[in-house]
């Protein structure tokens, strides 16, 4: 089967869209984890991922092997997420949602500035661990980097699925999120389960940051647009659904890529497409693709 050049270009956009979509999916999954734990969208998720990415590449530039530096960073990010929950979020766990959102925004601003102080604002390009080049089939070309991103994201998402659905700790976490009172009566340390949720979210987010850094340039504002795509992905998938986050991420990745073909959008209004997705989903189907309608408690 041979494809016309137009079809090839289209397919090319879809393939590379899936790769970026996989990155959005990881960050969206991080958002979903915290949403499920405490009904909150963490506006600092992108900045947390950015900070972890800086740590990873600081390690690598000091000669640490990539495949040691990255897992080490993920562990650090996990610890950092727990620390943030213990220090900043726990005192206001029961505060109104408005206060919590403002606090995560404060956290985002704080981490952004802190990264600026520590690492500076000069954008740096970082190398991908995957070799240059790629494989082509039928005129469509996939870089090794994109394949690597897809593989890593796939593994992370699978691990999260197994952890949440197939282990006792995952069951306890879900129980603590859905029925905190009952879980407490059964001896679950609910607050620590929330902390665990923050830790996992931070770790998953860190992976997305490390994956996206070679595509963009590493600087404190790197995740500012990525977090919007992740918002769009999470909202599209239904903000409480991990599976939805993955599907949403892939759809957003492909849509945003294909939208560049529309003259009105072009290369510089891709972010507006994400905004349009968010607004459209919230108005037409607020529960997203995989979410459940929740009755409003009076």
């Amino acid at each position: 089967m041979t494809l016309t050049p137009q079809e090839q270009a289209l397919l090319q956009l879809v393939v590379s869209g899936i790769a970026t979509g996989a990155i959005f999916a990881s960050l969206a999954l991080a958002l979903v984890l915290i949403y499920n734990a405490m009904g909150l969208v963490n506006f600092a998720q992108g900045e947390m991922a950015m900070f972890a990415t800086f740590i990873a590449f600081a390690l690598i530039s000091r000669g640490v092997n990539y495949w040691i530096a990255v897992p080490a960073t993920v562990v650090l990010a996990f610890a950092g997420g727990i620390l943030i929950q213990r220090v900043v979020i726990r005192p206001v766990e029961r505060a109104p949602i408005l206060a919590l959102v403002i606090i995560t925004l404060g956290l985002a601003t704080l981490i952004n500035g802190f990264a600026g102080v520590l690492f500076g604002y000069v954008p740096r390009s970082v190398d991908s661990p995957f070799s240059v080049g790629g494989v082509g089939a039928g005129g469509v070309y996939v870089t090794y980097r994109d394949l690597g991103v897809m593989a890593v994201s796939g593994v992370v998402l699978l691990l999260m699925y197994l952890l949440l659905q197939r282990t006792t700790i995952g069951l306890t976490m879900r129980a603590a999120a859905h029925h905190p009172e009952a879980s407490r009566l059964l001896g679950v340390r609910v607050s620590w389960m929330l902390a665990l949720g923050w830790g996992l979210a931070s770790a998953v987010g860190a992976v997305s940051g490390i994956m996206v850094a070679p595509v963009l340039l590493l600087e404190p504002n790197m995740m500012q647009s990525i977090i919007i795509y992740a918002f769009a992905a999470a909202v599209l998938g239904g903000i409480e659904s991990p599976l939805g986050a993955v599907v949403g991420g892939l759809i957003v990745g492909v849509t945003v890529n294909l939208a560049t073909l529309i003259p009105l959008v072009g290369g510089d209004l891709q972010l507006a497409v994400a905004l349009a997705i968010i607004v459209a989903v919230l108005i037409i189907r607020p529960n997203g693709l995989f979410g459940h309608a929740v009755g409003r408690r009076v």
Partner: protein
Amino acid sequence: MRQWLRTAPPRYGLVGLVVLFFAGLPTVISSFLASEWALALIFAIAIMGLNILIGYSGQLSLGHGAFIALGAYISAILAHRYKMDYLATIPIAGLVTGAVGFLFGVPALRLSALYLALATFALAVVTPSLIKRPKDLTGGVQGILLVQPDPPQPAKDAFAFFTSTLMTSDQWIYYITLFWALLLFWLAWNLLRHRTGRAMRAIRDREVAAAASGINVAGYKTLAFGISAFYAGVAGSLFGLATGFISPDTFPVSLSIQLLVGAVIGGLASIPGPLIGAVFAYFLPIESNQFVPSQAWIPSGLASTVEKAGPSVTYGVVLILVMIFAPNGIVGLATSGYLALRRRLRGAGDRETGQLPSDAQTG
């Protein structure tokens, strides 16, 4: 009149002092500082609008930078392209932005607080690229350069009478800004302490109960959005006037965050809060720019980074600390301090229950 003066609550005197302070300020500070204080007042207007939305009606907007940008560009385009008098464009910018905000408030009704925050945050991030697109209208990345008006003769004469110096256009713009700030604060004060304010607070605290008491929930929520956007539009228009230049990068997402910081630190759901918050939020980065290079212990290589990052770090810390320890901001702290002091001095209130003689909000 004398009777009224004697019985007026002490806060009227305080308001008078504040007005006098701001009216007299340009006569004692430099023209350059006057333009900075004008910007602080513009922040106060925008934050007042944000305060009406967040503090009184309980809807969180993280995208007010977008409304400010809209107001600024409406005025700039009218003045630059259609040669309108800039001062005449200010109310137009406010009203058009207000109408857009009102329309924006309709879909916002369907969203929970969280989703609204999310959508408006996305809007704030997208704003600069949205402005860049209609190049012919907005000038793209080049932005629009604006001519700052000369003060009219009567104003010049009056200013010369008090200071025996020539009034600069910065000083004139300061007074234009002060006029709008006084007008809009007075409007907000009248609006919020009566029926509308009560209705908005009722909706914020117990939406269902408010609806059950016959309050038009949807009406008041969209109204709050419209009013809030009107304030942002006027602020944006004045912003263009005061800075003399606007471009897409004048309205980054950090502007929206800066406004939020001002609203939160001054004190949500209060009238003086936005003014105090604006002074803090506006002058912090400027003071930081002056403070950092003067400090010998900061290595000179790091100074520019610290200058740039310092305000972010401070904003972040302040947002978190205020929300955790003083959710009502500076005004809340001052009010509770004053009440505690008065309790101690007068021994009023019931010691057993700790009940105050009258509600702070209504008393």
